[in-house]
Structures are given as structure tokens and as C-alpha cells.
């Protein structure tokens, strides 16, 4: 996956950790934006307003 199979040892491990880190940062930013846009509406809906 992601073409890192050809790497070996530490480079492969570093790439795996790097991919997880990048995904985490993207998800943080993506869900952050989603929360800002949809958060108030969801809160209002839960409050029954």
C-alpha cells in the first residue's frame, strides 16, 4: 500500500509511522472544519431548538 513495500527496515517503519501521522493531521483538520460548520446546528438540534 502507498508504494512503500520496496523500502526496507527503518525506512519502511518510518514511512508507516509518517503515513499514520499525516492521516491523523488530515483528519484533525478535516473533522475540525466539519465541526465548525456543522457543530452549532447539531448542538441546536440536540437541545431541541
Amino acid at each position, binding site marked *: 500500500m502507498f508504494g512503500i513495500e520496496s523500502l526496507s527496515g527503518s525506512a519502511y517503519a518510518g514511512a508507516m509511522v509518517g503515513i*499514520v501521522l499525516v492521516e*491523523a493531521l488530515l*483528519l484533525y483538520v478535516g*473533522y475540525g472544519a466539519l465541526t465548525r460548520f456543522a457543530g452549532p446546528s447539531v448542538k441546536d438540534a440536540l437541545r431541541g431548538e
Partner: protein
Amino acid sequence: MSLGMIALFVGFGLLVGILFGFFGMGGSFLVTPALLILGYKSTVAVGSGMAFVFGTSVIATLKHRDLGQVDYKLGVLMIVGTATGIEVGKEIVLHLQEMGLAGSIISAVYVLLLGGIGALVTYESISGGDGGTLEHDVDENADLDEEEIPEIAQKIQSYRIPPMISLRGGITVSLWMILLVAFATGLLSGFLGVGGGFIRMPALFYLVGVPVPIAVGTDLFEIIFSGGIGSFLYAQAGGVNLGIVIPLLAGSALGARLGSAATSIVDEDEIKVYFGVMLLLGSVAVAIKEIGGAYDIEILRTASIVVILGAAVLVAGAVVYSSVQSLRTPAPATSTAD
């Protein structure tokens, strides 16, 4: 990988993320058994679980940072003390292994520790004991009232051996006391072979006197390092499966956001009750598993996994339910008296 499996991992990630964001713990001890049930090799289950915990802790730490709930200075000091403690803990385990006593002693300590902390936290929350009134939205510059700090923490803070370190929440503690607490939690972590979130978070609150939200945020910050190093080591041995980690993380990122947001909504005592109940159920699960292993009763091993996963579903559900209830409860009316 089928769409069904991806959906399963995303859903399970959501559940674990809520607990992780809320308590600052509960990642690997839920994910690893679940992956083992699904038939993955133990190296893949542990390695992928660790990579997942690494990713989740990055996201949850960033969220806690946004709320001003991470004390980096304390985090770095804790990493130093914990790393030393883990090394000593590992040495003790190796020594016990040579004597053939490691398995039984570790299990007994695990059950006693989980059960003990769980009982203490639950009792204090129910009885409204020490430190039951801390606010979640912590003002970095606000000082805590003396009665809000647990007695043991007050005692530890009273040892004013220089250099003294100022921490978030307006508390000042001796550097040596922080390192001592970090070493002790690291020792237990290394001895038990666990990440140690369930030990460090209560230790930061009960022993150092750090407010619960900052204890959670700082603990998560520390897990980034332990999870990152652990993932790297397992990935070198081919133990990290991105097909598992990526969907799990996608679900847990949303869950962690909900979980850490809930810490600012739900009542402090409720948080501690959930935490205590989860630890108590965890100790029951470990005890059942050990008895199953000792007498070779397969159904008890399965029952222990059901108890752990059941506790996770129950507690995550309770967190969501309490958050929704808190949102639906109207805020007290502002006085309009002259």
C-alpha cells in the same frame, strides 16, 4: 479488504475514540483483543493497535491543546521519569521470569491495581470526596482552591525541594516529586507491559494535584511519544497493517473529537464514575481471563473479552448520553433582580 470490514473498523474506531478522547486512555487494551478475535497474528494485533493509539493520541492531544489542557513542561518531565521507570520495571519482569514467577505476579498486580484505582475513583465520585469539584474549562492563570486539591497531592506539593516547577492550573511542585511520580508510574507501566494511561492520568491528579482535564491532555501528549516509538519498532518487524489502522483512525478521529468535547460538557463527578467503573470491569475481565488460562477454560477467555468490549460500549454510550442530557438541560436563568 471488504466494505463490511472497513465499516466495522470505522465503527469500532468511533467507539474507542470517544473513550480515548474522554479519558486519555483505553486504546490498545481494546483494539488489540478485538484484532485477536478477528484472527490477526499477535504481532499485527499489537503493532496495529499501537499505530492506531499513536494516531489517535496525536488528534486528541491537538484537541486538548485547543482547550488549553496540555502542560508540555510537565509532559516532557513525565516522559523522562516514565522512560526510566519502564526500564527498571522491565528488568524486574526479566528477573521474575528467571524465577518462573512473572506471569502470576503480574496478573495479580494488574487485577489489584485496576480494581484498586477503579474502586477508589468510583468511591470518591459517589461520596463527593477529595477533588470532586474541579472545573473542566481550566483557566491557565487561575489558581485552584486548596480544598480542590486531593490530600495526597497537597502533601506532595508541600515538599518544597528546589527547583520548584510551576504547572498549569496555578500549582507549584518540586521537580523531584514530579520525577518520582513519573518514575513510579513508569515502573508499573514497564512491569505490567501496558501503555500506562490508566495509571498516569489518576497519578497526575491524585499525586501531583494537576486538574483532571490537564492530566488527560498531558497524558495524551506523552502517549504520542510512547505510541510513536512502539509503532516504529513493530513496523520494522512488519507488525503494522495500514488496512486496519487507516479505517480505525478515521472513525476514532471523530470519536476523539466527541470525547474531548464531552469533557467540557459532562459533570466532573460523572467522568470519574465512568472512569472508575471501566477500570473495575477491566480488573474483572483480567481476573476472568487468568482463571480461564489457569484451568484452560476457553469460555472464560471469551467472557473476559466480552466484558472488556461490553464495558467499552457501555461507558462510551454513557458519555454520549450524559453529554446529550447536559446539552438538553436548560442553563440556570440569569438573575434579573435589582
